[in-house]
């Protein structure tokens, strides 16, 4: 068991926003060309949590999503599958069935996603339902109101309870950084989530703007790095929402590579929560393989 002493979460770790932005801008200057580009595009594809989280989601849409997830582009059968599909709890069993025999995992949002405004008992039931339906991964939301009011022990206990309810399923904790606003809050929420038992920390629900940004992601990666150095435990990272272009995805991978190194460059430790990113990656991969851009009409919108 992890026996590391818990830090005092009321102590704030200072973070200089301008410095973080400068670091990101310097990392964005890395020039990713030729083989390293193709390698990274395929890697990014394999890291996607292909997502649909809408009130109007239908079983048919989820089945299409799963089909795209396991075979992203029929013309290039050797391409990797994406890492997972991410759906609402009521869609888990449908996704699970559709993905039978594939390596693609099923992630389910839970805990009164996206607001998290529900009592703990309801959140635990929500989680248990999703796990019972077959979810491999649970994406829970942080109670931002409690966090912003300084009730850190509430947050910690809630995450720990959900972790327990997850059983064998992996837990991703969505910080909803757009509502935390400061990078110091992002760092603090990351630390609490990791110490409370998160397997992954995730930026956003995708329902609040801004969603994932590179400065926020860098701060979370640095929190993961420091946690690893303090405990020896690796935690995964998932930026989600707003990442639509392959070029941005590569920039995120550079952030990971130069903050945490090669071990984290795998779908086990890094994910993109996205939907339209998949097609842009496919377009760029086809461009790299064939030398020409295909029309967007050649890529299915699932």
């Amino acid at each position, binding site marked *: *068991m*992890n*026996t*590391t*002493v818990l830090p005092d979460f009321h102590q704030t770790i*200072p*973070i*200089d926003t*301008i*410095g*973080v932005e*400068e*670091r990101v801008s*310097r990392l964005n*200057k*890395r*020039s*990713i*060309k*030729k*083989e*390293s*580009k193709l*390698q*990274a595009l395929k*890697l990014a594809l394999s890291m996607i949590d292909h997502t649909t989280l809408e009130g109007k989601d239908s079983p048919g849409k989820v089945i299409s999503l799963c089909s795209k997830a396991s075979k992203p582009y029929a013309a290039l059968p050797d391409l990797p599958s994406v890492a997972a599909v991410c759906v609402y709890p009521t869609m888990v069993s449908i996704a699970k069935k559709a993905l039978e025999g594939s390596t693609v995992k099923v992630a389910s949002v839970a805990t009164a996603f996206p607001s998290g405004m529900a009592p703990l008992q309801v959140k635990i039931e929500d989680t248990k339902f999703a796990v019972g339906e077959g979810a491999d991964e649970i994406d829970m939301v942080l109670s931002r109101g409690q966090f912003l009011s300084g009730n850190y022990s509430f947050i910690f206990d809630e995450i720990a309870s959900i972790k327990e309810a997850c059983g064998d399923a*992996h837990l991703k904790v969505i910080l909803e950084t757009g509502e935390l606003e400061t990078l110091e809050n992002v760092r603090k929420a990351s630390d609490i989530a990791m110490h409370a038992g998160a*397997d*992954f920390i995730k930026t956003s629900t995708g329902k609040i703007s801004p969603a994932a940004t590179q400065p926020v992601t860098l701060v979370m990666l*640095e929190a993961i*790095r420091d946690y*690893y*150095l*303090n*405990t*020896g*435990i*690796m935690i*995964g990272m998932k930026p989600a929402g707003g990442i639509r272009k392959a070029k941005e995805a590569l920039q995120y*991978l550079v952030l990971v*590579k*130069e903050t*945490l*190194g*090669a*071990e984290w*460059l795998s779908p*086990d*430790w890094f994910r993109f929560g996205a939907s339209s990113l998949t097609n842009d990656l496919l377009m760029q991969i086809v461009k790299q393989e064939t030398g020409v851009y295909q029309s967007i009409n050649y890529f299915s919108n699932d």
Partner: protein
Amino acid sequence: MSEQSKDKVIKNVEGNGQKPTSPNADLKFDFASFWEYSDAPESSDHIEILEKYDHFIDGEFVKPVKGRYMTSINPSTGKSLTQFAEGTSEDVDKAVKSARKAYTKVWKNLSGKERGKYIFRIARMIQERSRELAITESMDGGKPIRESRDVDVPLAAAYFFYYAGWADKLEYAFPGRKHESLGVCGQIIPWNFPLLMLAWKIAPALATGNTVVLKPAESTPITALKFAEICRDAGLPKGVVNIVTGAGQTGAALVDHPDVNKIAFTGSTAVGKIIQKSIAGTDKKFTLELGGKGANIIFEDAPLDQAVEGIVNAIFFNQGHVCCAGSRLLVQEGVAETLIMKLKNRMETLIVGDPLDKNTDIGAINSQSQFDKINDHLKIGVEEGASMYQSSCKIPDEGYYCRPTIFTNVSQSNRIVQEEIFGPVLTIQTFRTPDEAIEKANNTQFGLAGGVWTDKGSKIFKVGSKLKSGVVWANTYNKFDPTSPFGGYKESGMGREGGLHGLQGYLKFKF
């Protein structure tokens, strides 16, 4: 999310009496084994570098009187790049005469508005040729293209734009005081920022109505000669800017020339002292921008991850060939271990190599002699008993390259702490109280620049105001702007360049 990682749980730090800073300092990150960046070289095929360059005197390129040439090499390969004229006192005399004629006949009689037009035009032409200038700078000097492209060349243009704006507003610059231009300015610039230092010198000189004879450094003359082409193409009146190339003797001839009204020099403290001796007893005005050994002070309440970036920018920018480099790190004891661990991790991600590769962080050391000097200091450091740590990065087989290096276990009396190394070499000392940090920071012959890192605004001002150095950066390092004055305390120099203050060095005040 493998189970194996969960087994990596390491010992409990509770109650073992030690500081809980980094119980797993033995854990390493692997930055290299997977997804290496492919080469991304900036193409240099379209860059025209002549086989031979002459002096630029009186608006045209003229052969040196004695007919001798020197060689400029590309430090990333050690191979010759071009030949350039070796200036003698005869060449310098021609150039000064041309500058004098241009001064009395043309330049000083032009209105500020007209002078400004020429300077604006030069600024725009630097922008137009920015790609060429950046690539040339990296080939001739060894600095990474990321820096010449994003720092040197855009900043050089910015200085011309800034001082062009002053040209017609000089009478409002110093209210209540009357002033006039000096005449002919002799300017001698170093090899670390060839085009940028040229801009720092020439832009304010022209704006204030002076004419110029400039001598670039002997290892990096090419961008100055391309700048001469820009002056010619901009239609700048003949003789307003003259460029004479050569080494120390050429510079000495310029300093000693009786018809020069001002000497502006950037370079080593040793040469600065020689210049001061040479012009003693004359009425030549001078500004000197000399060496440094900047203290970068990290307090325990600093944003540490950003401070690590600041340290990297302070000492590894331009291979550490920066007079205001933060080459002495002073870190508060409580965070020293954590900070050094973070710094070492960060150093592992620095890419040393081909200056023209867009991913290169640290390029080539500028010359054989500088390469030798840095290596000497590495030896000295080890002999003095300091612990040396270098990143494990690959470096090219040919050319002059130095791995980023830090020294711990150093004392104030060590040579590596006292002497300017001018390379990617950092010494790290710890301190306990702010007073101790200030004392150590100031205990040096230099006083050019320093940094203060803390989350507390009042501490920035309290410590910053006690540092005896011309520049103090707070929670950042190596930031430059044309509007900001720059210059040194003590043996780091006299006079200020940049900003409103930078005008003073090129004006004679009547009352």
